């Protein structure tokens, strides 16, 4: 049981400390907010990476992703091989009036075709304008910031190790080829 009036004193002290401290309020329309790189502002589509696998649309809890596509035949790479078929994206749209910004589509995408962008100023006067078609989603891609750097003691990402290995192999191969060429040259003259 605290003594009588101690709550009053504490209230006065807390409010005075707030008064003495500088306010952290950002004057938003005048000063743009500083948002971390993966802020859930809007979902951008990197159309070139999309294979129309439909995983995002199936995982979406709000059913707010619309995808249309058709198949096209690709001429065979080698002579005599059979023709391949590939999916071509006709429509990719996200209805932001339904989206709940859970980010599951981004998690689900196996080809990194979807990314978070911190942009958030896309309010509309008509709710139908909140459905962003694929060209608009592609435009958001330009606003996606670079991923944040790794922690100082973090392990090297798998991609870098793979790339490193590939580069080393290529370098070794070209070196071996060069050595072979010089030997050939020496034998010929």
């Amino acid at each position: 049981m605290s003594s009588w009036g101690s709550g009053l004193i504490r209230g006065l002290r807390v409010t005075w400390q707030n008064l003495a401290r500088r306010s952290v309020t950002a004057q938003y329309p005048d000063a743009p907010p500083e948002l971390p790189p993966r802020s859930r502002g809007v979902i951008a589509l990197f159309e070139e990476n999309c294979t129309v696998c439909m995983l995002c649309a199936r995982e979406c809890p709000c059913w707010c992703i619309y995808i249309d596509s058709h198949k096209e035949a690709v001429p065979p790479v080698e002579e005599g091989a059979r023709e391949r078929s590939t999916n071509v994206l006709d429509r990719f749209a996200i209805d932001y009036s339904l989206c709940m910004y859970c980010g599951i589509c981004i998690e689900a995408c196996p080809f990194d075709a979807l990314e978070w962008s911190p942009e958030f100023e896309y309010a509309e006067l008509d709710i139908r304008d909140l459905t962003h078609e694929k060209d608009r989603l592609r435009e958001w891609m330009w606003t996606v910031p670079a991923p944040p750097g790794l922690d100082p003691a973090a392990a090297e990402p798998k991609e870098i190790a793979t790339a490193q290995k590939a580069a080393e192999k290529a370098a070794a191969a070209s070196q071996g080829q060069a050595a072979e060429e010089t030997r050939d040259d020496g034998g010929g003259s």
Partner: protein
Amino acid sequence: MADALELALRLVLVLGAFLVLPLLVGQTEHKVMAHMQSRVGPMYAGGFHGWAQLIADGVKFAQKEDVVPAAADGAVFRLAPAVAMVPYLVVLVAIPIGPGLVGQELDIGLFFVLAVMGVGVLGTLMAGWASANKYSLLGGMRVAAQLMAYELPFVLAAVSPAMAARTLSLSGIVEAWEPWWLIWQLPGLVVFFVAGLAELQRPPFDMPVADSELVFGPYTEYTGLRFALFLLAEYAGIVVLAALTTVLFLGGWQGPFADQLGWLWSLTKIGVVALLVVWLRVAVPRLRADQLQRLAWQALVPIALFQLALTSAVGVWNG
């Protein structure tokens, strides 16, 4: 002729103070309260940190339609804001700011001031009754209950410095004030200030206008300029309470270089007391009805009576 001119000048000055000081207090409240709550308050009106916010509010109020509810008692409803506001203007006439710097010097200044301040709260009662609204009526009843309880300690506490100074003149009280009064008049000071806050229905004593329970109490039906007058009355009330506390208990214009800077000392003390009013509003939650009554009758009245006894004893001791 010269007398009349001087009187007119004094009254114009008082009117100017009446129009400016409450706005200053209001703006200070906007900003100080905001920062005490880790906000920044108004930032746009006028360009620099929202200094013109209250002017913008005034313009907005003036543009609004003046609505009188169909069932309301029209005459009383229209008169109430004036009754709430004018007494504070009248009180300001009698409050001395510096030696000779007073609207009208009165020998019974303290009596006059307390009597007129009692009228101000009638405006709120009238508003509550005339609005023909249950929330207004409930608010009005709460005002009545609160005033019954707090008028007594308010007056009792105000009597103490008059007894100590052996005069009812406000200037006389300031003249007789000495720094050690701060110590032996302290209980009276606390009672006077707290009871004054309750008279003004300022938080934490804002149960009559408790917006979470009564919409806005007696002011629920008011719009436009009449509502603005009630607000102005509230802030003028803060100025008057701060000025009276300064004059009665804090030595008014007394301080270093009182002859030249007396008015500045008065205004500084008034400002500090007004800031305390704002600070308490931010820090203290609203009192419940039973807590209000208990505080008045079980704490403030006994303390005020004790202060009176102490003042009498010291007065008799000093002959």
